[in-house]
């Protein structure tokens, strides 16, 4: 009897539950945009925004000196808190930057009287100094290490914030002067990153490491709350009123005309009242969430490409989806490659000249064995862009007609190399391939192993090294414990200098040069070009350096992913995940307040 009652009770609950569908986060009719990200950010302290996810959010909560134009492609710098691009001295060593007046931090108990005060140039100086204070646990110091006069010394002298630095100072309340140790044309780009966001000293002193969860900024949005599945931000009503100008932001009516952006002209961003970002790392859950209308934007997981696209070349959306959604297929600003650990003498540099040569042949055989087409097809749905070397397709130095041998699969050639250099199944070295414990990475490994077995590499000699977290994996390969290092690089700014440094000798592990590649010629050329801005001369040299890398075969490189974005047609925006990144949120607008479908 009571069992029956229970059953009825359950059914009632389920029915009630179904009726409950359609309720929402905000009670009042706020314009809420729901974004989805494929990973959760860690700390929201600008000094710790090493992931693009944290960076994405931080640039909405804080101000940086510069950003990129919303709609211009290729990306163009645009002043944010600064008033104009910097005034640079003739020798390229001194920059003067003026900042806007009348920009205030949000109200917070950390300030006197709880009211947010005006931002001064000194705040910028303070924010950069923080990166050189061990207490901060900062992650951005490498951008400015050794570049700004007096900054490194400031750290060795004890990081006293009241001490002035000659190369980084506030001339007055609204002007900053920076003196470099050598020319650094990419400096302005570094001031678009979350690392350079401006934090108030009062908040840092009040909250310490807790600042990571208690942002106090001057950006277009204010932090409301955050947990492991989402972050909520509210419009900052006091954000400076700068009218939106389509042309200025680089609008191209031909390619962007269907996005409904004309209605933004002349209005003051941010246009939405509330910003909710859902962190959904499981592709299936993210896709379900998006199809159900729970989020309005998605970076489509690769497994779903086939039910989203009707064709791959040209990339076309399925008609039933094209009715409801806008889409954008854009290459990621970065690439994926597999480094070979040159510091391992069984496969890399070896003092014995003969062994050194044989190792070289082995590496090149491994590179030849890799089947980029299959890798692209399986893991990137065939729309990734494979390219030889380390100059990715969207760099201006890219050579579309370059020799493709480096990425062409050549099983016969590989076998020949092995045979001619005395390699056989007995003496081939054991190699380890590092992965973190996710399904896709295991599949990538299994595919690589099958590529190598096809050229005669004994499968028992190829083993995965599983790491439970990325940090663990990072540590292991930084300490030279992994032979084949599958890694990716996301560019920090749209300048190929950022990828060239990946093979610069002194950047060897634990630095970004995880293969510990060290070619004196390459290093020399890198140093020679380090102060150069983009130019035909620099392009020529970069291509030369690219060839040096490929000749040595220290890396199986590379592929640039093509990302697919889908977003609801009610939302008027051009989303971005690269350099513009989170900056586009302030320009998002929606027609019908909050979207609840069905």
């Amino acid at each position, binding site marked *: 009897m009571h069992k029956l009652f*229970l059953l009825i009770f359950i059914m009632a609950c389920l029915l009630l539950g179904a009726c409950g569908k359609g309720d929402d986060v905000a009670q009042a009719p706020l314009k809420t945009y729901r974004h989805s990200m494929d990973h959760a950010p860690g*700390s929201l302290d600008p000094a710790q925004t090493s992931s693009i996810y944290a960076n994405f959010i931080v640039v909405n909560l804080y101000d940086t000196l510069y950003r990129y134009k919303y709609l211009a492609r290729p990306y163009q710098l645009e002043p944010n808190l600064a008033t104009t691009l910097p005034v640079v001295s003739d020798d390229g060593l001194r920059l003067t930057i003026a900042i806007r007046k009348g920009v205030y931090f949000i109200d917070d108990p950390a300030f006197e009287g709880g009211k947010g005060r005006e931002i001064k140039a000194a705040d910028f100086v303070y924010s950069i100094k923080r990166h050189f204070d061990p207490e901060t646990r900062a992650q951005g110091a490498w951008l400015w290490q050794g570049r700004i006069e007096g900054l490194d010394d400031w750290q060795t002298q004890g990081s006293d914030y009241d001490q002035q630095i000659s190369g980084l100072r506030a001339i007055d309340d609204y002007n900053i002067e920076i003196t470099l140790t050598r020319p650094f044309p990419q400096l302005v780009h570094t001031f678009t990153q979350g690392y350079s966001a401006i934090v108030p000293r009062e908040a840092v002193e009040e909250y310490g490491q807790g600042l990571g969860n208690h942002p106090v900024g001057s950006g277009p949005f204010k932090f409301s709350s955050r947990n492991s599945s989402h972050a909520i931000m509210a419009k900052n009503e006091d954000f400076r009123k700068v009218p939106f100008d389509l042309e200025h932001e680089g609008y191209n009516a031909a390619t962007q005309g269907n996005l409904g952006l004309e209605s933004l002209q002349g209005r003051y961003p941010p246009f939405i009242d509330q910003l909710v970002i859902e962190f959904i790392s499981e592709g299936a859950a993210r896709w379900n969430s998006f199809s159900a209308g729970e989020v309005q934007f998605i970076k489509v997981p690769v497994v779903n490409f086939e039910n989203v696209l009707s064709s791959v070349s040209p990339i076309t959306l399925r008609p039933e989806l094209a009715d409801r959604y806008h889409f954008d297929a854009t290459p990621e600003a970065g690439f994926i490659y597999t480094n070979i650990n040159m510091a391992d003498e069984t496969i890399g540099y070896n003092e014995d000249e003969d062994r050194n040569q044989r190792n070289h042949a082995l590496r090149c055989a491994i590179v030849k064995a890799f089947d980029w087409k299959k890798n692209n097809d399986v893991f990137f749905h065939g729309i990734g862009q494979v390219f030889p070397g380390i100059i990715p397709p969207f760099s201006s130095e890219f050579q579309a007609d370059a020799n493709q041998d480096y990425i062409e699969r050549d099983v016969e050639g590989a076998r020949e190399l092995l045979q001619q250099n005395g390699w056989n199944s007995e003496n081939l070295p054991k190699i380890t391939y590092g992965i973190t414990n996710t399904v896709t990475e295991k599949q990538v490994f299994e595919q690589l192993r099958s590529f190598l077995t096809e050229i005669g590499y004994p499968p028992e000699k190829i083993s995965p090294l599983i790491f439970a977290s990325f940090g663990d994996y990072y540590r292991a390969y930084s300490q030279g414990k992994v032979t084949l290092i599958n890694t990716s690089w996301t560019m920090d700014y749209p300048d190929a200098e950022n990828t060239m440094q990946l093979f610069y000798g002194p950047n060897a592990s634990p630095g970004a040069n995880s293969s510990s590649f060290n070619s004196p010629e390459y290093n020399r050329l890198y140093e020679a070009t380090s102060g150069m801005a983009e130019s035909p001369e620099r392009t020529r040299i970069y291509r030369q350096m690219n060839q040096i890398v490929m000749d040595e075969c220290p890396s199986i490189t590379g592929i640039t992913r093509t990302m697919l974005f889908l977003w609801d047609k009610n939302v008027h925006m051009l989303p971005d995940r690269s350099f513009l990144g989170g900056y586009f949120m302030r320009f998002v607008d929606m027609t019908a307040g909050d979207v609840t479908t069905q």
Partner: protein
Amino acid sequence: MTRRLLYGIPLMLGVTLVSFMLMVYFGPDQTYELLGKNPTAQQITEVRHSLGYDRSFVVRYVGYLKEVVTLNFGLSASSGESVTDILKRTLPVSLALILPGFVLGNLLGLGFGMLTAWYRGGWLDKWVMTASVVGMSVSFLVIIIVLQVLLCTPYGLNMFPVRGWQVHDIGSWLYYVSVPTLALVLVTLGYNTRFYRAVMVEEIERDHIRTARIYGASPFSIMFRHVLKNSLVPILTRVMYSIPFVVVSGSLLLESYFGIPGVGLVTFNAITSGDQPVLKAVVSLTGILFVLVMLVTDIFYKWVDPRMLRS
């Protein structure tokens, strides 16, 4: 009772020591999670120092014990949020997630157990037993995947959300908790039914119950007044002892699959990233909870059956 309480202390020490060694001492080094792109050796040492890795084992362990006693675990190394705050917001969520399934699963199991014990050997018994075996042979994972497809996606009924937890009243709570609850009930029902049935059968076979049956006493009075009361001890033991685990690890799969921001998910993220403050807090909490449960169960025993005192 004081003896039990004293017994809890070496237990806590043991739990904290073992967990400390495994998770905090041998566990993942969070340094590399917190480094930027081009770290120098000096930066690495700095971060390690600020995370406390360079201090000796004993120093760190004693520090940990102090934290347990004062219940102050500091700030999460990943996000900077205070651990107490994290627990304050995640524990209620995990409870709200697990309780309905836990309670329903046990109630239903009890109900079925009583029914099948009473009608032992009949067709109902056989059907329920077969269903239980089937239920016990399906992996929790499979159930979750299937339910999500069937109930939350356009491929199925699409009545419930795929993930999320935006709960502010009963209606929204039911909306988000239904599918996880269903999954939990389906997974535990088989086990629960069999357990309760076994316990009931043991009681029912007793002579005085058999006699009562023969004399035509109503099933209700027999089941509830005699059988249930006498079976209270094993039932309660089982329920009580499953509480600490249900709260912490039972919710892990559900939380990660349905994106529910509860303790299980936070803990799991902390494990994989090596966020020590959070880990220390969670482990200590389960240890304390376990000891508390032991105490409470003991008190309950004495209240229910003074005969337990003798053993």
